[in-house]
């Protein structure tokens, strides 16, 4: 019996930006929709502002591997300034997908990092977070962009699931729930790919 493909994802951020939380949130949402999941951070020096990575695996069957992820199909960049010093496309295959939090277009990013392969997507997750949540926490809207670009989860189901979880967690702060959900939806609608 051959097993279904395992999808591997890498998140790039800076310490304190929520790259680890993003991976955990995404895995939790995916699990609630019936997937087998893994979410784990890369542990190096834990300093605010230092480049950090976190990872996801998703599959329809149990995931047994516990080694690192070196060639993810999808890479997300929470902080575009990282791209000057970190090779965020490392290991990304030709048909891989790179999703960047930026107000620039995918074409501009491609030129900037001189990337030949992979598809590039951009979304102004920081701007959306600032507007909808009132703080620059790009990881939540990036979830919306990831669901749109990857097609791994049903968006409506994911939104409903996230809403249920937020309602439990922030029962006394309904404005947080509304802001987060709107941020995810907006990023889902606004993420743009390259014109082919």
């Amino acid at each position, binding site marked *: 019996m051959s097993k279904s493909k395992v999808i591997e994802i890498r998140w790039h951020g800076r310490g304190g930006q929520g790259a680890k939380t993003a991976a955990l949130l995404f895995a939790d949402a995916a*699990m609630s929709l019936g997937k087998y*999941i893994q979410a784990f951070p890369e542990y190096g020096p834990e300093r605010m502002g230092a480049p950090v990575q976190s990872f996801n695996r998703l599959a329809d069957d149990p995931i047994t*591997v516990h080694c690192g992820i070196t060639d993810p199909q999808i890479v997300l960049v929470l902080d575009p300034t990282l791209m000057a010093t970190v090779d965020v496309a490392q290991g990304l295959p030709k048909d891989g997908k790179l999703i960047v939090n930026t107000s620039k277009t995918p074409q501009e990013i491609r030129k900037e990092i001189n990337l030949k392969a992979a598809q590039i997507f951009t979304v102004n997750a920081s701007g959306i977070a600032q507007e909808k949540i009132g703080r620059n926490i790009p990881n939540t809207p990036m979830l919306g962009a990831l669901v749109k670009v990857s097609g791994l989860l049903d968006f409506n189901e994911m939104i409903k699931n996230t809403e249920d979880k937020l309602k439990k967690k922030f029962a006394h702060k309904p404005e947080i729930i509304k802001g987060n959900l709107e941020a995810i939806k907006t990023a889902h609608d606004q993420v743009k790919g390259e014109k082919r």
Partner: protein
Amino acid sequence: MPTIAKTGNEAMAEAMRQIDPDVVAAYPITPATEVVMIFSQFVADGLVGTEFVAVESEHSAMSACVGAASAGCRVMTGTSSQGLQLMSEILPIASALRQPIVLCEVNRALSGPINIHCDHSDTMAVRDFGWIQLFSENAQEAYDNILQLVRITENEKVRLPGMATTDGFIISHCMEKIESLDDAEVKKYIGDFKVIKSTLDLDKPITLGSLDLQDYYFEHKMPIVEAMKEAKQVILEVGKDFGQRYGREYGLIEEYKLADAEIAMVALGSTCGTARAVIDELREKGVKAGLLKVRAFRPFPAEEIVKALAKVKAAAVLDRSDMFSNQGGQLCCEIKSAMYDLKQKPLLTNYVYGLGGREISLEDIRKIFAEQQGTASSGKVKQAVQHFGVRE
């Protein structure tokens, strides 16, 4: 059964909450910090009735555990690496006093140089102290092993302390999907703690920790020898019963596609999961590869391992620790020792790997299996002990 997303540490802390021990004495240490931190939050939130003793070192933590267990309490703690070594002085006292203390251990390299990542040196260093040792492949097994350890250690034939381990960061900080049990089910499963002797029983005063010299010390060590023999059967019974109740059966070892295997890998902990994926690939190519996962390192399942590897031509035994004896790692030495009387033995190659968290990739495991194919066809072991993945 609720399906939850938990890291290894969260899974162990959740099991502790559901067990609701009388006393937990612990000191935080990376990567086991969260086990203690999450549990102390449960205490602060009133979710457990546990007396939490915030001590100033692991030596004190284990001392307080022994004190509380002597009083007749169900006791748990958690630690890692240097913390486990600092407990070393007290660990054999816990087993000599036949105290069923359950310890959540997160495998981490030993200093020095200082390193916070996974290897098995810490757990291996305390292997001869009369503690039961169970290794977990993933977060699910960490949760299940902690629950089963309560039953195993408290079994009246055993009454020894035990530790369940996860691999530091690889499992302790990896969130996975696990099936947990309902709180009420856990209560029912573990049952009430049976007090055999208590220092607080004023009607039957007892003395513990008294001087015991040439005349009786030896006799007083023999019950540990006997209890460890009994522990093998008890671990099997508890593991089988767990399977009947909740669908996940456990043994002393686990075989994966080993029945007809010509080449095999033997390993502990999280690497077993990565090996499974490579074995699936090899099987699709028609290579008869299999895995022998060693779950219980203490007691050591010598007969079971010998039997499981009997028909294998060549096997790679993976040790995530070195004994610095020029003989390789602990697991391989135990297996070689167990095979001494066999007329026909599989060809064993010991791979000491992954020290200080050095990555073991799918490609690494493919390479090791390819070497076993070479060994099986040539009938010769190239190098009995290899330090795999180390730069020259």
